[in-house]
């Protein structure tokens, strides 16, 4: 490549600011950011504007949308207001998704990094351990966990995290194995860097791009997983969530599509927005894509 810095002038900027400048250039990521912000704002503050209790039975069941002005999205099988449901159910859904993704990343990256970096028996032991979790039928295992303990949102997030980290671990391990043999890692060793520093400061930042993508996917998967559990009747029945809305209304889908469809659309939009943002973040933190 004919890249040369002889003619570039470097303006010094804080790394975060530079990342933000890059992020701003990425139109899809901005759209994702806008969608997600709207959703979060709505779930946090929507209830103040649109005052209605999601748990109250306020109208006849299965009122179609756009018929009664008070209930623009209609009501569910019990006659509860769907708008109130969507607004109240958002926060728990997002929280479960984010928490589960965080758990997945923490366990997955830690296990994968140690296995990939040290290799040998450490790798062997950790990978057997990972395989054990990987062959567990995820949904079944989560169901067992949730039924054994109380089906609270925390438990659901933990269950999802515990069954979905092996993939992240494998991905991290592969990246670490590849990168640890590159010369800049040897160079770090040669200037006296300790293993911990090499793993977290040198290798991890370079392993991040696929991990960020996988983390955003995990948020999506976790939200869907929660919906799946609720669909099977294993959600937390006392906390409204989009998953629970889908789960409890599924039986009547053929009579009334809306109580299932609207939460479904919200889940889709959230997952979509998160993955756009993930893409943008990945680019923003990649110095190679920055203007020369």
């Amino acid at each position: 490549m004919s890249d040369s810095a002889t003619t570039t002038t470097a303006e010094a900027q804080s790394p975060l600011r530079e990342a933000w400048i890059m992020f701003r250039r990425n139109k899809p990521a901005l759209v994702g950011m806008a969608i997600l912000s709207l959703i979060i704002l709505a779930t946090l503050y929507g209830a103040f504007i649109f005052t209605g209790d999601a748990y109250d039975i306020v109208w006849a069941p299965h009122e179609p949308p756009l018929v009664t002005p008070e209930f623009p999205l209609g009501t569910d099988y019990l006659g509860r207001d769907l708008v109130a449901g969507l607004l109240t159910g958002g926060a728990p859904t997002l929280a479960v998704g984010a928490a589960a993704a965080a758990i997945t990343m923490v366990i997955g990256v830690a296990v994968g990094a140690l296995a990939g970096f040290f290799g040998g028996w450490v790798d062997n032991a950790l990978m057997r351990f990972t395989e054990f979790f990987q062959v567990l039928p995820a949904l079944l295992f989560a169901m067992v966990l949730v039924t054994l303990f109380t089906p609270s949102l925390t438990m659901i997030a933990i269950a999802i995290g515990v069954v979905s980290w092996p993939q992240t671990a494998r991905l991290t391990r592969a990246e670490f194995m590849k990168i640890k043999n590159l010369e800049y890692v040897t160079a770090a060793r040669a200037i006296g860097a300790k293993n911990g520093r090499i793993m977290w400061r040198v290798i991890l930042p370079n392993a991040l791009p696929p991990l960020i993508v996988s983390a955003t996917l995990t948020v999506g998967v976790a939200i869907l997983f929660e919906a799946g559990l609720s669909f099977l009747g294993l959600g937390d029945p006392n906390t409204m969530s989009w998953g629970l809305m889908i789960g409890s209304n599924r039986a009547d889908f053929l009579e009334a599509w809306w109580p299932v469809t609207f939460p479904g659309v919200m889940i889709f939009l959230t997952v979509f927005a998160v993955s756009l943002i993930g893409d943008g973040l990945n680019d923003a933190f990649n110095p190679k894509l920055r203007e020369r």
Partner: protein
Amino acid sequence: MALLEINDLKVEFGTRYGPVTALDGVSLEVEAGETLGVVGESGCGKSITALSVMGLIPSPPGKIAGGSIKLGGEELIGLPDKRLRQLRGSDMAMIFQEPMTSLNPVFTAGDQIAEAIMLHQDVGKAEAFNRAVELLDRVGIPEARRRASDYPHQLSGGMRQRVMIAMAVSCQPKVLIADEPTTALDVTVQAQIFDLLNDIQRDFGTAIIMITHDMGAIAEMADRVAVMYAGKVIEQGVADDILDNPKHPYAQGLIACIPALGKGDAGRPPPLAEIPGVVPPLHLLGEGCAFADRCAHKYDACAKAPVLGGDTAHPVACHASAEARI
């Protein structure tokens, strides 16, 4: 008329800085039985020149923006794909720098050569395979019949390059382009490959275009030399003239900065001659001489691009040289 004539070739690439000119009016010719050496710094357009001849410029982002390439009188630019495919392999062939990646890992060496033969000649599988074995023997692979059923990963780098050469010469092409064929190989193996290429040329009268950045390789292999810089030919001539009497400041620097291999004598050798600076990136090339920033002989005339001219046997693109200021 020469066997291969490249005339005023222009190649452009679309980049994020807009279109850049990777080749800017390159003219070269090669006669049958002759080796033309092409030298120059990384990125100066050597490979792009070779790929243009083969009709293999990646497009997009690349495109041939002008000029002509004639092989045995036939214009290659704009030729339909079908005809180009016929010519590739039979009339012109190319060997690449990386012998590790230019062979298909899932076929044996013999099969790949046989495949190349069957593509251009009307022979059966068994016959083609026998020819492949002969060729492997010809390029100096010991136990050719056994080696023919080896997969590329079972061969050393030098042997892979021999297989590539066997494949390239399987149909006795008129022009063989070797793009840095020995850069990835050890010197002892490189010497073997050079001898092999010279033998092939002697036996078949093949014209060879030898791309390299190594002046030593030029001395051993080339009859004539073209020196390239930033997409242009800046000096051209008989190998001995270029090596003993380079006219362009860049060519002079290129030859002077090679660490000599002579006998050791007491004390350290003096510092090497240096060409300061780096090649400017294509998108930042200005109006004037592309070498001006690095040139010790620069003067006001250099603000305009010099053209290749002067002595027809040894033309050079440099104002200072043309006006005898060097």
